[in-house]
């Protein structure tokens, strides 16, 4: 698991397409499930989010993602899984997280994706500053 998880700026739809294409030679895969998080134009006190600026505690984040990865492979019958998260500015409408799970058969693929996304939100030290254009910012916090 020396793979690159953190991506500078938004994750492009093209990056998602390239990841899918790379799995077409794995002919034991029957089902893929992809979760994508998109920056929403949330409102707070009449101001609209224009972007989120992500930062992370990289050594801890990589360790946590390695643990999540290991646990997911132990818990579910997966062929492949990949996690990508943006660092830096991601504008409204752009993608900031991409979780990609592949299995032989479909039943476990949804639960595995949900499990991985929930653990990332809860355990990985990522920080997000919501920008309100010219009207300041606030720090995002996962519930």
């Amino acid at each position: 698991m020396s793979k690159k998880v953190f991506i500078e700026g938004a994750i492009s739809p093209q990056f998602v397409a390239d990841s899918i294409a790379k799995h077409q030679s794995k002919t034991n895969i029957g089902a893929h499930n992809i979760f994508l998080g998109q920056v929403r134009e949330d409102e707070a006190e009449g101001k609209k989010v224009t972007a989120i600026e992500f930062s992370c505690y990289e050594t801890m984040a990589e360790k946590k993602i390695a643990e999540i990865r290991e646990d997911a492979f132990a818990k579910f019958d997966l062929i492949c899984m990949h996690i990508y998260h943006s660092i830096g500015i991601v504008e409204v409408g752009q993608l900031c997280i991409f979780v990609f799970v592949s299995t032989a058969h479909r039943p476990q693929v949804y639960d595995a994706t949900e499990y991985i996304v929930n653990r990332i939100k809860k355990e990985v030290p990522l920080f997000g500053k919501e920008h309100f254009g010219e009207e300041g910012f606030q720090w995002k916090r996962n519930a």
Partner: protein
Amino acid sequence: MLTIHYFGEIAEKTGLTSEKLHSQGQHISTVLAELQKKYALENGEFQVAVNHELIDLSQDLELTETDEIALLSAFAGG
């Protein structure tokens, strides 16, 4: 001497990403009391990771100079 790292909103409040600290004691409670006073950090406003694991602040861990200590604001990934 301990090295403390700051991330997210905490880094913004301290104005630092890390600093060396000559603490009066090597217990986490002593270190945190100093830092909370210095930077006006409220309880519950930060989490503490030692060697990349969040720690339970009700247990008063003794720190060593080789420990990697970090104060983190709320997580916001995904």
